């Protein structure tokens, strides 16, 4: 019966037999269109988030399927943003799924002319060594006879897209290190 079925499925037949005589709508609709659904309907998870760009703090909904972000859009529930996003916020999915995002550690040795590969674990260890060394090298108990208990050898400049919790740990660690030149986009 397949040929019959195929014939009856021919939109032209639907057109002739149904109400859509000009083949404008109902008759012309394809199987795909009939079964269409937004790709977010089968998301595994919808996660509440906040836009990372400016400081308005628009609420975002992050749709996740199979461990990947499939859509980011405004959350209408927010009293501040009421579901709206600017072009940057609307581009958030591209931000997090960008193909040019670098996902491996890059290392440039002193006087090197190109990047090299480095294991993350090794990199963190090397950085810890350098912090310890520089801190010691530039340690200062006092300046002009006044107690300073610090190092001016290490500085940090953070962006203002960091979380409060991150800033908190950073300031805490740096302060314990004695590093004071800890700065932020807020100054810039």
């Amino acid at each position, binding site marked *: 019966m397949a040929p019959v079925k195929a014939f009856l499925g021919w939109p032209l037949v639907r057109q002739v037999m149904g109400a859509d005589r000009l083949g404008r709508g109902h008759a012309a609709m394809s199987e795909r269109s009939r079964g269409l659904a937004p790709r977010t309907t089968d998301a595994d998870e919808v996660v509440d988030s906040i836009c990372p760009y400016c400081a308005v703090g628009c609420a975002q909904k992050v749709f996740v399927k199979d461990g990947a972000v499939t859509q980011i859009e405004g959350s209408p529930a927010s009293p501040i943003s009421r579901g709206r996003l600017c072009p940057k916020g609307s581009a958030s999915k591209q931000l997090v799924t960008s193909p040019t995002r670098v996902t491996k550690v890059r290392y440039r040795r002193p006087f090197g002319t190109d990047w090299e590969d480095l294991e993350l674990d090794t990199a963190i260890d090397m950085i810890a060594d350098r912090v310890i060394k520089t801190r010691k090298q530039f340690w200062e108990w006092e300046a002009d006879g006044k107690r300073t208990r610090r190092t001016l050898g290490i500085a940090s*400049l953070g962006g203002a897209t960091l979380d409060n919790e991150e800033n908190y*740990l950073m300031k805490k660690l740096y302060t314990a290190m004695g590093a004071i030149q800890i700065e932020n986009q807020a100054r810039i």
Partner: protein
Amino acid sequence: MPGLGTSFGRGGATTNLMDLQNSDCIVIQGSNMAEAHPVGFQWVVEATRRGATVIHVDPRFTRTSALADVHVPIRAGSDIAFLGALVNHVLSNDLDFREYVVAYTNAAAIIGEEFRDTEDLAGLFSGYDAESGSYDPESWQYVNAPQAPAAGQRDPAQPGGPHEERHRAARSETAGSGGPAVSAKPERDETLQHPRCVFQILKRHFARYTPEMVEQVCGVAPEQFAKVADALTSNSGRERTSAFCYAVGWTHHSVGVQKIRTASILQTLLGNIGRPGGGIMALRGHASIQGSTDIPTLFNILPGYLPMPHAHEHENLDDYVAGDAGSTGFWGNMRDYAVSLLKSYWGDAATADNDFCFDYLPRLTGNHGTYETVKGQIEGRCKGYFVVGENPTVGSGNGKMQRLGMANLDWLVVRDMQLIESATFWKDGPEIETGELATAEIGTEVFFLPAASHVEKAGSFTQTQRMLQWRDKAVEPPGDCQSELDFYHELGVRIRRKLAGSADEMDRPLLDLVWDYPRDEHGDVDGQAVLREINGTGPDGAALSSYTELKSDGSTACGCWIYCGVYADEVNQARRRKPHWEQDQVAAEWGWVWPANRRILYNRASAAPDGTPWSERKKYVWWDPEAGSWTGADVPDFIADRPPDHVPEDGATGPDALGGQDPFIMQTDGKAWLYVPVGLADGPMPTHYEPAESPVPNPLYPGQQGNPAIENIKTASNPMNPSLSEVFPFVFTSYRLTEHHTAGGMSRTLPYLSELQPEPFCEVSPGLARERGLEHLGWATIVTARTAIEARVLVTDRLRSLRLGDRTIEQVGLPYHWGPNGIVRGDAPNDLVGLALDPNVHIQDKVGTCDIRPGRRPRGPALTAYVADYRRRAGVVDPEEDS
């Protein structure tokens, strides 16, 4: 922001975006809100739908101007003259909200006889030391102020010395939450007639800020000025309120703090602070700028705006607290906040016996801000550098200086999502092209660590209206990508492991540090546990609900006292997501706002002194005599049960010293400060000074061209254009576009945003185009003493030639988003910026002078020669020889 902090007691925006819909008039100045905060701008549009008047004062006609009722083109950097004239208009026509002003401000306070105004000293206040280029604020005090030391003044060892100067300056930011200290309530004249009362001083100070002066300084016609003045004054008072919105158009100036101060004075005189539809909306530019000052990664403050201690021969916790906390108001409890912070840092190691490890804190000796630090890098004094989610070679002022600093490090760690210019400067920076740097000669070891995106980690941002909003984690970060939380935690773990067993005293703070955090179900450091530490815990280990529960005896720990309450009842309050349609307009159950979830600050002022609403239309928080408490739509920003007629006992301290009519509870006297006797480095009242680089003389104070207390960064790569130079006759101003984000790392890398603004351009008026032969879509070279860049030209009527008296000023507009990397590329406009800093906050001018010529810039070494020739012709002084 000390402009707001010194005026009202807290540095945060006094209001919130949603409340703008209740405004009758909104003045947007120093902000291009529709472009930089499009979603926030919906509330301005709501206000216009309700009939509000919107005024945009800005050098350029922007997308904000397009929707405003009035656009006032103004010369970049002349805002104080404009706002000062509005203050003068209000004062000289008795248009202030007198009942509010008398009750809630320091207008009645009487200033000491030693004080001299700029009007008396040709542009300087009393106390100026020309040698150090700084002020001693001693003479600015209230009359008969007891001799207890005011902030920044406690170290007599080196009066006027460089340390002293910086010391004082660095204190300004501590007004983020808690006004600067004056030791007692001032003498007052409630009739405001005393010649030395603040009201009269203010009147005299601004008397010469007339509409005619505005025309001469700002290029604004008197009719335009009158339009703004009328709209603002007719929409302020009992029945109506007006709001101000500002952003980096004000903060990015060498007089940035005083710009905000002028607006604060104006809004206070008009009675617009603490009331619905009123206030000053500080529009921050990044997701958590507010958060990164509340819990700072800033050199001069600790969490909650506690000051970093300065170097002294002997100092203990008591001295530290005594020097910075006033005895009255809520800042009077600073010891509780400081001890609780030390407990959260060093836990059991911090005991009353060891001063709660106060000595573990490193000390400041001056300005250790980012630009001073970069100078230190160039001079070889700073060799290790973490750049975290930031792109200073494009985003900071004077990119060359940034790159020269980076090229002189031992090691550099860059954490980002894309290979930004700050990570690749050694390979393809502009100095490689000119030959000033050579890759093979740069010894900096560079680690690029890929960062997790905002959906790949959980955490909170504090947005522009002081609201903390929690983000859940959606997906795992790809590859080596990692959150800052995980990276810094791991770094700390390894450093501590490597130092374990060290007996060296210098390692004690690291080894005693509380650094064990639980991990969540993803194996990440649990951000909620960190937030809970920030919130603070009581003696029983349970999360605290309010900073009023903090103790100085070591029984409480709190990582940031102003965030105390964000984890109240062991619930992450920042994660609350009750839809707005299930709440009233204040929407108190969405996120969490510091302090104590108060949405409009100083809202006690929304009621008259007797506690009743000023008007039915502007009802917000009021005294309920039957309940014996303050009530209303918001959490009262006041002591809940303190009646309006309460008069504190003499000698009361801390919050007990606050009367029933003292709405500004973080100020030592409970009042909004029209005049700031202490806490600012460049004067108790705002004064118009020209930007560090200006093509015009200062007509208000002919002898005083620029801010006398300005901070210069003296290094060879930071030469400044001489003011009034014929060689640099135009004004440039840099700014953002909607389609991009700051230094571009998060936008130039995305096709959908790059295609919308695909190339660097400059905007010029038809007049300037004619004068210099610039063609629409052609190339132009823009030159300052620092360097020259090229950009395509947009000739547009949106930029106007401004008439200042008999001369015309042309401005060059420069969106600053591009750099050499990314999908769409070009020269970075911030390379043009010279560094001259606001002495309060060490932030640079976003305006300067320049030349502009048709055609592309020279390539390679010819570029440095080209700029050197400009410097020679302009007579630019080598900064290092200029002492």
